[in-house]
Protein backbone atom coordinates (compact mmCIF):
# COMPACT_ATOMS: atom_id res chain seq x y z
CA UNK A 1 0.00 0.00 0.00
CA UNK A 2 2.71 2.39 0.99
CA UNK A 3 4.54 1.60 -2.22
CA UNK A 4 1.57 2.88 -4.15
CA UNK A 5 0.91 5.88 -1.99
CA UNK A 6 4.48 7.00 -1.98
CA UNK A 7 4.75 8.99 -5.23
CA UNK A 8 1.59 10.88 -4.52
CA UNK A 9 2.65 11.78 -1.03
CA UNK A 10 5.90 12.79 -2.56
CA UNK A 11 4.17 15.18 -4.85
CA UNK A 12 2.84 16.97 -1.80
CA UNK A 13 6.04 16.95 0.09
CA UNK A 14 8.60 17.66 -2.60
CA UNK A 15 7.03 20.81 -3.93
CA UNK A 16 6.51 22.23 -0.48
CA UNK A 17 9.86 21.21 0.92
CA UNK A 18 11.86 22.04 -2.16
CA UNK A 19 10.50 25.56 -2.28
CA UNK A 20 11.39 26.09 1.34
CA UNK A 21 14.80 24.45 1.04
CA UNK A 22 15.88 26.32 -2.05
CA UNK A 23 14.89 29.66 -0.66
CA UNK A 24 16.50 29.06 2.71
CA UNK A 25 19.62 27.58 1.10
CA UNK A 26 20.23 30.74 -0.81
CA UNK A 27 19.74 32.72 2.35
CA UNK A 28 22.02 30.63 4.58
CA UNK A 29 24.73 29.42 2.25
CA UNK A 30 25.07 32.46 0.08
CA UNK A 31 27.48 34.90 1.62
CA UNK A 32 26.54 38.47 1.37
CA UNK A 33 29.17 41.08 1.08
CA UNK A 34 28.32 44.63 0.58
CA UNK A 35 31.69 45.56 -0.82
CA UNK A 36 31.31 47.65 -3.94
CA UNK A 37 34.14 45.81 -5.59
CA UNK A 38 32.27 42.57 -5.55
CA UNK A 39 29.71 43.95 -7.94
CA UNK A 40 32.33 44.84 -10.50
CA UNK A 41 33.24 42.56 -13.37
CA UNK A 42 36.99 42.94 -12.81
CA UNK A 43 38.78 43.45 -9.56
CA UNK A 44 41.46 45.44 -11.25
CA UNK A 45 41.96 47.05 -14.58
CA UNK A 46 39.77 49.32 -16.60
CA UNK A 47 36.13 49.53 -15.63
CA UNK A 48 33.97 48.23 -18.46
CA UNK A 49 31.86 50.75 -20.29
CA UNK A 50 28.21 50.22 -21.12
CA UNK A 51 26.44 46.98 -20.47
CA UNK A 52 27.70 43.51 -21.07
CA UNK A 53 24.31 42.52 -22.38
CA UNK A 54 24.66 43.37 -26.00
CA UNK A 55 21.17 43.07 -27.49
CA UNK A 56 21.13 40.43 -30.21
CA UNK A 57 19.14 41.15 -33.30
CA UNK A 58 15.67 39.64 -32.99
CA UNK A 59 16.45 37.58 -36.09
CA UNK A 60 18.50 35.13 -34.04
CA UNK A 61 15.63 34.38 -31.73
CA UNK A 62 13.25 34.09 -34.61
CA UNK A 63 15.36 31.60 -36.43
CA UNK A 64 16.01 29.66 -33.26
CA UNK A 65 12.35 29.41 -32.44
CA UNK A 66 11.44 28.33 -35.93
CA UNK A 67 14.23 25.80 -35.89
CA UNK A 68 12.90 24.22 -32.71
CA UNK A 69 9.49 23.83 -34.27
CA UNK A 70 10.56 22.22 -37.50
CA UNK A 71 13.12 20.13 -35.70
CA UNK A 72 10.58 18.69 -33.32
CA UNK A 73 8.01 18.01 -36.02
CA UNK A 74 10.46 15.65 -37.66
CA UNK A 75 9.99 13.35 -34.66
CA UNK A 76 6.92 11.99 -36.39
CA UNK A 77 8.96 10.76 -39.27
CA UNK A 78 10.81 8.23 -37.11
CA UNK A 79 7.92 5.97 -36.12
CA UNK A 80 6.72 6.01 -39.68
CA UNK A 81 10.18 5.13 -40.93
CA UNK A 82 10.32 2.16 -38.53
CA UNK A 83 7.14 0.54 -39.78
CA UNK A 84 6.80 2.11 -43.19
CA UNK A 85 6.85 -1.32 -44.84
CA UNK A 86 3.88 -2.53 -42.87
CA UNK A 87 1.92 0.64 -43.50
CA UNK A 88 2.60 0.59 -47.20
CA UNK A 89 1.01 3.06 -49.52
CA UNK A 90 -1.45 4.29 -46.93
CA UNK A 91 1.33 5.37 -44.61
CA UNK A 92 3.15 7.04 -47.41
CA UNK A 93 0.17 9.17 -48.35
CA UNK A 94 -0.45 10.06 -44.74
CA UNK A 95 3.14 11.16 -44.41
CA UNK A 96 2.86 13.24 -47.55
CA UNK A 97 -0.13 15.01 -46.04
CA UNK A 98 1.87 15.60 -42.90
CA UNK A 99 4.79 17.07 -44.81
CA UNK A 100 2.37 19.18 -46.81
CA UNK A 101 1.00 20.64 -43.62
CA UNK A 102 4.54 21.43 -42.51
CA UNK A 103 5.15 23.05 -45.86
CA UNK A 104 2.17 25.36 -45.37
CA UNK A 105 3.86 26.59 -42.24
CA UNK A 106 7.12 26.92 -44.06
CA UNK A 107 5.60 28.95 -46.85
CA UNK A 108 3.85 31.13 -44.35
CA UNK A 109 7.08 32.09 -42.58
CA UNK A 110 8.71 32.62 -45.92
CA UNK A 111 5.88 34.89 -46.97
CA UNK A 112 6.14 36.82 -43.74
CA UNK A 113 9.86 37.28 -44.33
CA UNK A 114 10.85 35.68 -41.06
CA UNK A 115 13.83 33.97 -42.64
CA UNK A 116 15.25 36.98 -44.46
CA UNK A 117 18.63 37.57 -43.00
CA UNK A 118 19.10 41.21 -43.84
Amino acid at each position, binding site marked *: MFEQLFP*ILLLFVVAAVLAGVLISLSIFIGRRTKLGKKGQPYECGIDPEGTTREPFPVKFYMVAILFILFDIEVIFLYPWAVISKELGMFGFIEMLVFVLILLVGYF*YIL*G*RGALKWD
Partner: protein
Amino acid sequence: MIDTTAASIDFSIIAPEIALLAAAFIILVSVYNKKMRNLAPVIATAGLLVSLLIAIEQMGNPKTGFFGMVTCDDFTVVFKILFVISSLLILMFGRRYFVSKNIDRPEFYALLCISTMGMMVMASTTDLVVIFLGLEIMSVPLYVMAGMDKRSLESNEAGIKYLIMGAFASGFLLMGIAFIFGSSGTTDLRRIAADFQFIGENYQLYFNAGAVLTLVGFAFKVAAVPFHSWVPDVYQGAPTPVTAFFSVGPKAAGFAALLRIFNFGFEDMEFISDIFWMLAVLTMTVGNILALRQGNIKRMLAYSSIAHAGYILVAFAVGGSAAMSAAVFYLFAYGLFNLGSFAIITQLEIRSGCKSELSELSGLSKAHPYLSAALTVFMLALAGFPPTVGFIGKFYLFTAAIDGGFIWLTIIGVLNSFISVYYYLRVVKVSFLEKFEGTFVPVKYTPAMMAVLLITLAGTLGLGIFPEKLLEISRAAIFAFL
Protein backbone atom coordinates in the same frame (compact mmCIF):
# COMPACT_ATOMS: atom_id res chain seq x y z
CA MET B 1 -0.98 -5.90 -38.64
CA ILE B 2 -2.54 -2.48 -38.30
CA ASP B 3 -6.01 -2.15 -39.60
CA THR B 4 -5.97 0.47 -42.31
CA THR B 5 -9.23 -0.47 -43.94
CA ALA B 6 -11.51 2.23 -45.22
CA ALA B 7 -14.08 1.56 -42.51
CA SER B 8 -11.76 2.79 -39.84
CA ILE B 9 -10.30 5.78 -41.63
CA ASP B 10 -13.37 7.76 -42.58
CA PHE B 11 -12.64 11.35 -43.45
CA SER B 12 -16.30 12.27 -43.54
CA ILE B 13 -16.26 12.12 -39.75
CA ILE B 14 -13.73 14.89 -39.49
CA ALA B 15 -14.94 16.87 -42.48
CA PRO B 16 -15.88 19.97 -40.42
CA GLU B 17 -12.38 20.05 -38.98
CA ILE B 18 -10.83 19.63 -42.40
CA ALA B 19 -12.88 22.52 -43.76
CA LEU B 20 -11.62 24.80 -41.00
CA LEU B 21 -8.05 23.67 -41.45
CA ALA B 22 -8.26 24.28 -45.18
CA ALA B 23 -9.55 27.79 -44.59
CA ALA B 24 -6.73 28.46 -42.15
CA PHE B 25 -4.12 27.18 -44.61
CA ILE B 26 -5.46 29.26 -47.45
CA ILE B 27 -5.27 32.34 -45.26
CA LEU B 28 -1.73 31.53 -44.16
CA VAL B 29 -0.47 30.96 -47.68
CA SER B 30 -2.27 34.06 -48.92
CA VAL B 31 0.11 36.36 -47.07
CA TYR B 32 2.04 36.62 -50.34
CA ASN B 33 -0.70 38.59 -51.98
CA LYS B 34 -1.96 41.96 -50.71
CA LYS B 35 -5.40 41.49 -52.16
CA MET B 36 -5.73 38.01 -50.79
CA ARG B 37 -4.73 39.24 -47.36
CA ASN B 38 -7.78 41.44 -47.20
CA LEU B 39 -9.94 38.49 -48.09
CA ALA B 40 -8.93 36.62 -44.92
CA PRO B 41 -12.18 37.29 -43.04
CA VAL B 42 -14.16 36.15 -46.06
CA ILE B 43 -12.18 32.94 -46.37
CA ALA B 44 -12.56 32.27 -42.67
CA THR B 45 -16.29 32.91 -42.84
CA ALA B 46 -16.61 30.59 -45.78
CA GLY B 47 -14.65 27.90 -43.96
CA LEU B 48 -16.80 28.25 -40.85
CA LEU B 49 -20.02 28.17 -42.86
CA VAL B 50 -18.98 25.05 -44.75
CA SER B 51 -17.98 23.47 -41.49
CA LEU B 52 -21.32 24.42 -39.95
CA LEU B 53 -23.26 22.92 -42.83
CA ILE B 54 -21.31 19.68 -42.69
CA ALA B 55 -21.76 19.52 -38.93
CA ILE B 56 -25.52 19.96 -39.23
CA GLU B 57 -25.49 17.23 -41.85
CA GLN B 58 -23.79 14.90 -39.36
CA MET B 59 -26.62 15.24 -36.85
CA GLY B 60 -28.41 12.04 -35.98
CA ASN B 61 -25.83 9.84 -37.66
CA PRO B 62 -23.34 8.65 -35.04
CA LYS B 63 -20.06 7.27 -36.30
CA THR B 64 -16.76 6.13 -34.89
CA GLY B 65 -13.53 6.04 -36.77
CA PHE B 66 -9.76 6.32 -36.71
CA PHE B 67 -9.31 3.23 -34.55
CA GLY B 68 -11.85 4.49 -32.06
CA MET B 69 -10.00 7.73 -31.57
CA VAL B 70 -12.73 9.90 -33.11
CA THR B 71 -16.38 9.67 -32.21
CA CYS B 72 -19.01 11.77 -33.85
CA ASP B 73 -22.35 11.49 -32.08
CA ASP B 74 -25.07 14.07 -31.52
CA PHE B 75 -23.22 15.38 -28.51
CA THR B 76 -20.24 16.17 -30.69
CA VAL B 77 -22.37 17.76 -33.36
CA VAL B 78 -24.24 19.98 -30.95
CA PHE B 79 -21.00 21.29 -29.55
CA LYS B 80 -19.49 21.72 -32.98
CA ILE B 81 -22.45 23.87 -33.94
CA LEU B 82 -22.02 25.93 -30.80
CA PHE B 83 -18.32 26.51 -31.50
CA VAL B 84 -18.83 27.45 -35.11
CA ILE B 85 -21.69 29.82 -34.40
CA SER B 86 -19.76 31.63 -31.70
CA SER B 87 -16.70 31.95 -33.95
CA LEU B 88 -18.88 33.24 -36.77
CA LEU B 89 -20.39 35.91 -34.56
CA ILE B 90 -16.95 36.96 -33.36
CA LEU B 91 -15.75 37.20 -36.95
CA MET B 92 -18.69 39.42 -37.79
CA PHE B 93 -18.12 42.03 -35.14
CA GLY B 94 -14.37 41.72 -34.65
CA ARG B 95 -13.12 43.11 -37.95
CA ARG B 96 -14.07 46.70 -37.38
CA TYR B 97 -12.55 46.71 -33.96
CA PHE B 98 -9.22 45.43 -35.26
CA VAL B 99 -9.21 47.95 -38.05
CA SER B 100 -9.94 50.78 -35.64
CA LYS B 101 -7.09 49.64 -33.36
CA ASN B 102 -4.85 49.09 -36.36
CA ILE B 103 -4.19 45.45 -35.54
CA ASP B 104 -6.14 43.81 -38.31
CA ARG B 105 -3.92 41.00 -39.56
CA PRO B 106 -4.90 37.94 -41.56
CA GLU B 107 -3.27 35.66 -39.00
CA PHE B 108 -6.06 36.31 -36.55
CA TYR B 109 -8.59 34.66 -38.82
CA ALA B 110 -6.36 31.65 -39.35
CA LEU B 111 -5.84 31.32 -35.62
CA LEU B 112 -9.58 31.60 -35.05
CA CYS B 113 -10.20 28.73 -37.45
CA ILE B 114 -7.48 26.56 -35.96
CA SER B 115 -8.62 27.23 -32.43
CA THR B 116 -12.21 26.39 -33.36
CA MET B 117 -10.94 23.22 -34.92
CA GLY B 118 -9.18 22.36 -31.66
CA MET B 119 -12.45 22.73 -29.78
CA MET B 120 -14.13 20.42 -32.25
CA VAL B 121 -11.43 17.82 -31.73
CA MET B 122 -11.97 18.09 -27.99
CA ALA B 123 -15.65 17.44 -28.33
CA SER B 124 -15.40 14.65 -30.86
CA THR B 125 -13.46 11.99 -29.08
CA THR B 126 -13.62 9.61 -26.20
CA ASP B 127 -9.87 9.27 -25.96
CA LEU B 128 -7.94 11.23 -23.40
CA VAL B 129 -4.92 11.59 -25.69
CA VAL B 130 -6.99 13.17 -28.40
CA ILE B 131 -8.76 15.38 -25.89
CA PHE B 132 -5.37 16.62 -24.74
CA LEU B 133 -4.30 17.29 -28.31
CA GLY B 134 -7.53 19.13 -29.04
CA LEU B 135 -7.05 21.20 -25.92
CA GLU B 136 -3.60 22.25 -27.06
CA ILE B 137 -4.66 22.94 -30.63
CA MET B 138 -7.33 25.17 -29.16
CA SER B 139 -5.14 26.83 -26.53
CA VAL B 140 -1.96 27.73 -28.37
CA PRO B 141 -3.79 30.01 -30.83
CA LEU B 142 -5.66 31.49 -27.87
CA TYR B 143 -2.39 32.52 -26.24
CA VAL B 144 -1.33 34.27 -29.41
CA MET B 145 -4.71 35.93 -29.84
CA ALA B 146 -4.64 37.28 -26.29
CA GLY B 147 -1.32 38.96 -27.00
CA MET B 148 -2.03 39.99 -30.56
CA ASP B 149 -2.09 43.72 -29.87
CA LYS B 150 1.68 43.86 -29.80
CA ARG B 151 1.98 47.51 -28.84
CA SER B 152 -0.44 47.33 -25.95
CA LEU B 153 1.23 46.51 -22.66
CA GLU B 154 -2.04 45.08 -21.33
CA SER B 155 -2.38 42.76 -24.27
CA ASN B 156 1.25 41.60 -23.89
CA GLU B 157 0.70 40.92 -20.27
CA ALA B 158 -2.56 39.06 -20.90
CA GLY B 159 -0.83 36.89 -23.47
CA ILE B 160 2.14 35.91 -21.35
CA LYS B 161 0.03 35.32 -18.25
CA TYR B 162 -2.40 33.16 -20.17
CA LEU B 163 0.41 31.21 -21.80
CA ILE B 164 2.30 30.41 -18.63
CA MET B 165 -0.78 29.59 -16.60
CA GLY B 166 -2.20 27.58 -19.48
CA ALA B 167 0.97 25.56 -19.90
CA PHE B 168 1.16 25.10 -16.15
CA ALA B 169 -2.37 23.71 -16.10
CA SER B 170 -1.56 21.50 -19.08
CA GLY B 171 1.25 20.01 -17.04
CA PHE B 172 -1.18 18.96 -14.34
CA LEU B 173 -3.63 17.65 -16.90
CA LEU B 174 -0.96 15.60 -18.57
CA MET B 175 0.20 14.16 -15.26
CA GLY B 176 -3.41 13.27 -14.55
CA ILE B 177 -3.76 11.52 -17.89
CA ALA B 178 -0.51 9.68 -17.18
CA PHE B 179 -1.86 8.39 -13.87
CA ILE B 180 -5.14 7.33 -15.40
CA PHE B 181 -3.32 5.60 -18.20
CA GLY B 182 -1.03 3.89 -15.71
CA SER B 183 -3.77 2.63 -13.47
CA SER B 184 -6.30 1.57 -16.06
CA GLY B 185 -4.03 0.60 -18.92
CA THR B 186 -5.90 2.65 -21.48
CA THR B 187 -6.76 6.20 -22.37
CA ASP B 188 -10.04 5.33 -24.04
CA LEU B 189 -12.92 6.47 -21.88
CA ARG B 190 -15.22 3.79 -23.23
CA ARG B 191 -12.89 1.09 -22.04
CA ILE B 192 -12.39 2.83 -18.73
CA ALA B 193 -16.15 3.05 -18.31
CA ALA B 194 -16.53 -0.63 -19.16
CA ASP B 195 -13.66 -1.92 -17.03
CA PHE B 196 -14.11 0.44 -14.19
CA GLN B 197 -14.52 -2.18 -11.52
CA PHE B 198 -11.49 -3.97 -12.93
CA ILE B 199 -9.10 -1.43 -11.47
CA GLY B 200 -7.49 -3.19 -8.56
CA GLU B 201 -7.35 -1.90 -5.04
CA ASN B 202 -3.73 -0.98 -5.52
CA TYR B 203 -4.31 1.20 -8.51
CA GLN B 204 -7.32 2.98 -7.10
CA LEU B 205 -5.21 5.70 -5.56
CA TYR B 206 -3.37 6.46 -8.77
CA PHE B 207 -6.63 6.53 -10.55
CA ASN B 208 -8.21 8.92 -8.07
CA ALA B 209 -5.21 11.21 -8.16
CA GLY B 210 -5.24 11.07 -11.96
CA ALA B 211 -8.94 11.90 -12.07
CA VAL B 212 -8.42 14.89 -9.80
CA LEU B 213 -5.47 16.19 -11.80
CA THR B 214 -7.43 15.82 -15.04
CA LEU B 215 -10.29 17.67 -13.43
CA VAL B 216 -7.90 20.45 -12.45
CA GLY B 217 -6.69 20.76 -16.03
CA PHE B 218 -10.19 21.36 -17.32
CA ALA B 219 -11.29 23.37 -14.30
CA PHE B 220 -8.59 25.79 -15.38
CA LYS B 221 -10.06 26.07 -18.86
CA VAL B 222 -13.60 26.63 -17.65
CA ALA B 223 -12.37 29.05 -14.97
CA ALA B 224 -13.42 27.31 -11.80
CA VAL B 225 -12.18 28.74 -8.52
CA PRO B 226 -9.37 28.35 -7.36
CA PHE B 227 -8.00 27.83 -10.88
CA HIS B 228 -9.54 31.03 -12.14
CA SER B 229 -6.99 33.71 -11.36
CA TRP B 230 -5.88 34.16 -14.96
CA VAL B 231 -9.40 34.93 -16.16
CA PRO B 232 -9.90 38.56 -15.11
CA ASP B 233 -6.44 39.64 -16.20
CA VAL B 234 -6.57 37.92 -19.55
CA TYR B 235 -10.13 39.05 -20.25
CA GLN B 236 -9.30 42.63 -19.47
CA GLY B 237 -6.03 42.73 -21.35
CA ALA B 238 -6.98 40.93 -24.53
CA PRO B 239 -8.61 42.80 -27.41
CA THR B 240 -12.37 42.80 -26.80
CA PRO B 241 -13.51 40.48 -29.62
CA VAL B 242 -10.83 38.02 -28.50
CA THR B 243 -12.16 38.22 -24.96
CA ALA B 244 -15.60 37.49 -26.32
CA PHE B 245 -14.14 34.48 -28.08
CA PHE B 246 -12.50 33.24 -24.84
CA SER B 247 -15.69 33.47 -22.89
CA VAL B 248 -17.72 31.15 -25.07
CA GLY B 249 -15.93 28.59 -27.22
CA PRO B 250 -13.03 27.45 -25.03
CA LYS B 251 -15.26 27.38 -22.02
CA ALA B 252 -17.85 25.26 -23.79
CA ALA B 253 -15.09 22.99 -25.06
CA GLY B 254 -13.77 22.58 -21.52
CA PHE B 255 -17.22 21.67 -20.33
CA ALA B 256 -17.71 19.28 -23.22
CA ALA B 257 -14.53 17.46 -22.22
CA LEU B 258 -15.58 17.44 -18.57
CA LEU B 259 -18.95 16.00 -19.59
CA ARG B 260 -17.32 13.23 -21.57
CA ILE B 261 -14.78 12.37 -18.95
CA PHE B 262 -16.71 12.69 -15.74
CA ASN B 263 -20.24 11.98 -16.76
CA PHE B 264 -19.45 9.20 -19.16
CA GLY B 265 -16.01 7.85 -18.27
CA PHE B 266 -15.88 8.05 -14.50
CA GLU B 267 -19.55 7.97 -13.79
CA ASP B 268 -19.41 5.95 -10.63
CA MET B 269 -16.92 7.96 -8.67
CA GLU B 270 -18.64 9.24 -5.59
CA PHE B 271 -16.01 11.71 -4.45
CA ILE B 272 -15.86 13.47 -7.81
CA SER B 273 -19.43 14.64 -7.26
CA ASP B 274 -18.36 16.08 -3.90
CA ILE B 275 -15.47 17.88 -5.56
CA PHE B 276 -17.79 19.32 -8.16
CA TRP B 277 -20.09 20.43 -5.36
CA MET B 278 -17.29 22.31 -3.66
CA LEU B 279 -16.00 23.79 -6.89
CA ALA B 280 -19.48 24.94 -7.87
CA VAL B 281 -20.11 26.71 -4.58
CA LEU B 282 -16.68 28.30 -4.52
CA THR B 283 -16.81 29.35 -8.14
CA MET B 284 -20.26 30.91 -7.94
CA THR B 285 -19.56 32.74 -4.73
CA VAL B 286 -16.08 34.01 -5.45
CA GLY B 287 -16.98 35.02 -9.00
CA ASN B 288 -20.02 36.98 -7.92
CA ILE B 289 -18.51 38.64 -4.91
CA LEU B 290 -15.42 39.74 -6.79
CA ALA B 291 -17.54 41.11 -9.60
CA LEU B 292 -19.37 43.41 -7.21
CA ARG B 293 -16.75 46.12 -7.07
CA GLN B 294 -15.35 46.11 -10.57
CA GLY B 295 -15.14 49.36 -12.46
CA ASN B 296 -14.11 47.88 -15.78
CA ILE B 297 -16.85 46.15 -17.72
CA LYS B 298 -14.57 43.61 -19.32
CA ARG B 299 -13.17 42.65 -15.95
CA MET B 300 -16.64 42.53 -14.49
CA LEU B 301 -17.75 40.23 -17.29
CA ALA B 302 -14.69 38.10 -16.60
CA TYR B 303 -15.77 37.54 -13.03
CA SER B 304 -19.28 37.05 -14.26
CA SER B 305 -18.04 34.35 -16.58
CA ILE B 306 -16.41 32.67 -13.58
CA ALA B 307 -19.72 32.84 -11.75
CA HIS B 308 -21.57 31.35 -14.71
CA ALA B 309 -19.07 28.50 -14.81
CA GLY B 310 -20.11 27.93 -11.21
CA TYR B 311 -23.76 27.60 -12.17
CA ILE B 312 -22.87 25.08 -14.82
CA LEU B 313 -20.72 23.14 -12.36
CA VAL B 314 -23.87 22.72 -10.26
CA ALA B 315 -25.12 20.43 -13.01
CA PHE B 316 -21.94 18.35 -12.73
CA ALA B 317 -22.38 17.97 -9.01
CA VAL B 318 -25.95 16.80 -9.54
CA GLY B 319 -25.27 14.47 -12.47
CA GLY B 320 -27.89 12.63 -14.44
CA SER B 321 -29.32 13.38 -17.83
CA ALA B 322 -31.61 16.24 -16.80
CA ALA B 323 -28.84 18.21 -15.15
CA MET B 324 -26.42 17.53 -17.96
CA SER B 325 -28.80 18.65 -20.67
CA ALA B 326 -29.45 21.74 -18.54
CA ALA B 327 -25.71 22.39 -18.62
CA VAL B 328 -25.62 22.11 -22.41
CA PHE B 329 -28.64 24.39 -22.66
CA TYR B 330 -27.00 26.89 -20.37
CA LEU B 331 -23.82 26.91 -22.42
CA PHE B 332 -25.78 27.82 -25.53
CA ALA B 333 -27.78 30.46 -23.71
CA TYR B 334 -24.73 31.94 -22.04
CA GLY B 335 -22.93 32.05 -25.37
CA LEU B 336 -25.73 34.06 -26.90
CA PHE B 337 -26.16 36.83 -24.41
CA ASN B 338 -22.54 37.01 -23.46
CA LEU B 339 -21.53 37.52 -27.08
CA GLY B 340 -24.26 40.13 -27.32
CA SER B 341 -22.85 42.08 -24.40
CA PHE B 342 -19.34 41.86 -25.77
CA ALA B 343 -20.55 43.01 -29.16
CA ILE B 344 -21.96 46.14 -27.55
CA ILE B 345 -18.77 46.78 -25.62
CA THR B 346 -16.78 46.32 -28.81
CA GLN B 347 -19.07 48.77 -30.54
CA LEU B 348 -18.49 51.31 -27.79
CA GLU B 349 -14.76 50.71 -27.72
CA ILE B 350 -14.47 51.51 -31.39
CA ARG B 351 -14.89 55.10 -30.29
CA SER B 352 -11.42 56.38 -29.72
CA GLY B 353 -9.98 56.36 -26.24
CA CYS B 354 -12.64 54.13 -24.77
CA LYS B 355 -11.29 51.63 -22.25
CA SER B 356 -14.59 49.96 -21.39
CA GLU B 357 -14.75 51.55 -17.97
CA LEU B 358 -18.18 51.50 -16.38
CA SER B 359 -18.22 55.26 -16.04
CA GLU B 360 -17.99 55.62 -19.80
CA LEU B 361 -21.50 54.24 -20.05
CA SER B 362 -23.19 56.99 -18.10
CA GLY B 363 -26.02 58.63 -19.93
CA LEU B 364 -25.83 56.05 -22.71
CA SER B 365 -29.59 55.76 -22.80
CA LYS B 366 -29.91 59.33 -23.97
CA ALA B 367 -27.23 59.18 -26.60
CA HIS B 368 -27.95 55.68 -27.90
CA PRO B 369 -31.35 54.56 -26.71
CA TYR B 370 -31.44 51.38 -28.79
CA LEU B 371 -27.93 50.32 -27.89
CA SER B 372 -28.62 50.83 -24.22
CA ALA B 373 -31.93 48.97 -24.50
CA ALA B 374 -30.08 46.04 -26.05
CA LEU B 375 -27.44 46.24 -23.33
CA THR B 376 -30.20 46.15 -20.74
CA VAL B 377 -31.67 43.01 -22.26
CA PHE B 378 -28.28 41.28 -22.20
CA MET B 379 -27.61 42.32 -18.64
CA LEU B 380 -31.03 41.07 -17.59
CA ALA B 381 -30.28 37.80 -19.35
CA LEU B 382 -26.94 37.50 -17.58
CA ALA B 383 -28.69 38.16 -14.31
CA GLY B 384 -31.30 35.54 -15.14
CA PHE B 385 -34.44 37.62 -15.42
CA PRO B 386 -37.49 36.30 -17.21
CA PRO B 387 -38.44 36.19 -20.01
CA THR B 388 -34.88 35.95 -21.32
CA VAL B 389 -33.15 32.69 -22.09
CA GLY B 390 -30.90 33.32 -19.09
CA PHE B 391 -33.84 32.75 -16.82
CA ILE B 392 -34.90 29.54 -18.52
CA GLY B 393 -31.34 28.26 -18.35
CA LYS B 394 -31.02 28.93 -14.65
CA PHE B 395 -34.49 27.68 -13.92
CA TYR B 396 -33.89 24.45 -15.78
CA LEU B 397 -30.56 24.00 -14.02
CA PHE B 398 -31.93 24.60 -10.56
CA THR B 399 -35.03 22.47 -10.99
CA ALA B 400 -32.72 19.64 -12.04
CA ALA B 401 -30.70 20.26 -8.89
CA ILE B 402 -33.82 20.28 -6.71
CA ASP B 403 -35.00 17.09 -8.35
CA GLY B 404 -31.64 15.53 -7.60
CA GLY B 405 -32.10 16.45 -3.95
CA PHE B 406 -29.41 19.12 -3.89
CA ILE B 407 -31.47 21.65 -1.97
CA TRP B 408 -28.64 23.52 -0.34
CA LEU B 409 -26.75 23.81 -3.56
CA THR B 410 -29.87 25.25 -5.15
CA ILE B 411 -30.33 27.76 -2.38
CA ILE B 412 -26.72 28.86 -2.64
CA GLY B 413 -27.12 29.11 -6.40
CA VAL B 414 -30.26 31.22 -6.19
CA LEU B 415 -28.71 33.46 -3.56
CA ASN B 416 -25.68 33.90 -5.76
CA SER B 417 -27.67 34.75 -8.80
CA PHE B 418 -29.38 37.45 -6.76
CA ILE B 419 -26.07 38.91 -5.69
CA SER B 420 -25.11 38.95 -9.34
CA VAL B 421 -28.15 41.05 -10.20
CA TYR B 422 -26.55 43.84 -8.24
CA TYR B 423 -23.60 44.33 -10.54
CA TYR B 424 -25.42 43.58 -13.77
CA LEU B 425 -28.07 46.13 -13.02
CA ARG B 426 -25.37 48.59 -12.06
CA VAL B 427 -24.53 48.69 -15.74
CA VAL B 428 -28.19 49.39 -16.51
CA LYS B 429 -28.31 51.96 -13.75
CA VAL B 430 -25.26 53.79 -15.00
CA SER B 431 -26.51 53.89 -18.56
CA PHE B 432 -30.04 54.91 -17.64
CA LEU B 433 -29.92 56.79 -14.38
CA GLU B 434 -26.69 58.68 -14.52
CA LYS B 435 -26.01 61.90 -16.25
CA PHE B 436 -23.39 62.16 -18.89
CA GLU B 437 -21.03 65.06 -18.95
CA GLY B 438 -19.14 65.75 -22.12
CA THR B 439 -19.81 65.12 -25.73
CA PHE B 440 -20.75 61.87 -27.31
CA VAL B 441 -18.94 60.47 -30.26
CA PRO B 442 -21.60 59.04 -32.51
CA VAL B 443 -21.37 55.31 -33.07
CA LYS B 444 -21.54 53.98 -36.59
CA TYR B 445 -23.01 50.55 -36.99
CA THR B 446 -21.61 48.29 -39.64
CA PRO B 447 -24.17 45.92 -41.17
CA ALA B 448 -22.30 42.98 -39.66
CA MET B 449 -22.42 44.50 -36.20
CA MET B 450 -26.11 45.22 -36.65
CA ALA B 451 -26.66 41.60 -37.65
CA VAL B 452 -24.77 40.31 -34.62
CA LEU B 453 -26.79 42.48 -32.28
CA LEU B 454 -30.06 41.45 -33.87
CA ILE B 455 -29.17 37.76 -33.85
CA THR B 456 -28.09 37.72 -30.23
CA LEU B 457 -31.01 39.87 -29.17
CA ALA B 458 -33.52 37.73 -31.01
CA GLY B 459 -31.89 34.63 -29.56
CA THR B 460 -31.88 35.96 -26.02
CA LEU B 461 -35.53 36.94 -26.07
CA GLY B 462 -36.82 34.40 -28.57
CA LEU B 463 -35.26 31.39 -26.91
CA GLY B 464 -36.55 32.72 -23.61
CA ILE B 465 -40.08 32.52 -24.91
CA PHE B 466 -39.72 29.49 -27.16
CA PRO B 467 -36.96 27.40 -25.58
CA GLU B 468 -38.51 24.13 -26.73
CA LYS B 469 -36.26 23.48 -29.69
CA LEU B 470 -33.03 24.23 -27.86
CA LEU B 471 -34.16 22.02 -24.98
CA GLU B 472 -34.70 19.18 -27.40
CA ILE B 473 -31.30 19.69 -28.92
CA SER B 474 -29.54 19.71 -25.58
CA ARG B 475 -31.39 16.61 -24.51
CA ALA B 476 -30.48 14.87 -27.74
CA ALA B 477 -26.85 15.76 -27.10
CA ILE B 478 -26.88 14.11 -23.71
CA PHE B 479 -28.84 11.05 -24.73
CA ALA B 480 -26.27 10.45 -27.42
CA PHE B 481 -23.91 8.90 -24.93
CA LEU B 482 -26.18 7.71 -22.20
